[in-house]
């Protein structure tokens, strides 16, 4: 622990109180075995067959979670596209770069909250009555594109920037354009299901490089925590 906390008595107390784990010895064969499978293309995971079969009705589908204000009218020229609602209620647990999406086919499942001319908005919980914010967590499901709702919630002032369509366009939905494979732990995530069936985490490289994305998400996280949010609606 070589940092400003190195000689901290409280953390020292924590360290001393923990017994060292008797961890099993892992063989190098594990690494060899893990690196034998080259069938999966770098930078993405394939979705389960069930998900793909559901997705086939609408071909490419993009999915993203955003924090947004439903009252705000988006002036971007979005086009209406077909959307298969089954994706929301039957997709099940899908592997997403080492993590899972939640299954909405349970109490509290995502429901259609708002129909707009540029897309449908889904959420499984409305925060506006719980918080002093005009904000909700929404999931936008669209065909081959990801859209933003052009408004941040209150204090996370720049949150909107990371969901702007231009970033998607810049990145082009390919693995090399995405800087990070992993969903931010414990924070809202942005997921994109691309036309090739790969489900990508959406973290634009231009934000990841300087840590801005993490700062924005932390900012949001902190703001919500301070407001007493105990859980986050996910589907």
């Amino acid at each position, binding site marked *: 622990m070589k940092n400003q906390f190195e000689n901290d008595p409280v953390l020292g107390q924590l360290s001393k109180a923990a017994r060292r784990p008797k961890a099993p010895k892992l063989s190098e064969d594990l690494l060899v075995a893990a690196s034998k499978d080259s069938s999966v293309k770098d930078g993405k995971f394939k979705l389960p067959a069930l998900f793909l079969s559901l997705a086939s009705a609408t071909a490419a589908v993009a999915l993203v979670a955003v924090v947004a204000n439903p009252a705000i009218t988006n002036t971007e020229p979005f086009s209406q596209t077909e959307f298969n609602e089954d994706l929301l209620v039957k997709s099940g647990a899908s592997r997403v770069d*080492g993590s899972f999406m939640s299954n909405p086919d*349970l109490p509290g499942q995502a429901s259609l909250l708002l129909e707009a001319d540029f897309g449908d908005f889904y959420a499984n919980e409305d925060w506006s009555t719980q918080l002093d914010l005009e904000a909700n967590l929404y999931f936008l499901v669209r065909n081959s594109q990801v859209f933003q709702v052009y408004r941040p919630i209150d204090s996370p002032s720049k949150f909107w920037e990371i969901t702007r369509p231009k970033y998607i366009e810049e990145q082009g939905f390919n693995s090399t354009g995405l800087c*990070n494979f992993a969903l931010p732990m414990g924070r809202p*995530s942005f997921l994109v299901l691309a036309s090739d069936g790969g489900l990508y985490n959406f973290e634009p490289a231009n934000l990841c490089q300087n840590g801005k994305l993490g700062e924005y998400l932390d900012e949001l996280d902190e703001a919500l925590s301070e407001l007493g949010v105990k859980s986050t609606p996910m589907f």
Partner: protein
Amino acid sequence: MDQDKFVATFRSHLQDVSKYLTRRVEISNVEDLASEIFEIAWRKRESCPEGFELAWLYKIAGFVVSNHRKKLSRRAVMVPLLDHDMSAPSAEDVALDGSAVAEAFDKLSAKDRQVLSLLVFEQLSIKEIAVVLGTTENNTSQRIKRARERLAKHLAQQVSDTHEGGH
């Protein structure tokens, strides 16, 4: 990165990953989950930041552990993601032997336990923790500082309660 380099790079981290997992899951699951972690690492090897291989592995491990725990939970997929880092160890997981420390640690949020665990038990640097969390060093330091303050507060409370209980 070819297979030889992959093996050479991560060979020295095998036991670190084993310890990380042992603090968070049943020992019988450690090898399977480690395999999963390294399979993901192999697939994502091009995104591994040079010099931060272990932190990068812990980042993957965090998701793998979270998924594993979700699978074990009946309400698995309804587990909210914002306030719960499913990979954070509990006091029991890390075998804390001091009851006051254990109780204080368990009173922390998962997020606090996660960041303190990476610092104290996994012995990562601030920079490495920032890689795991996907945030900046400054932000990481602030998170640690706040978590440490909350731990100190809980510990003081434990001492106070014990003291009062003795009279």
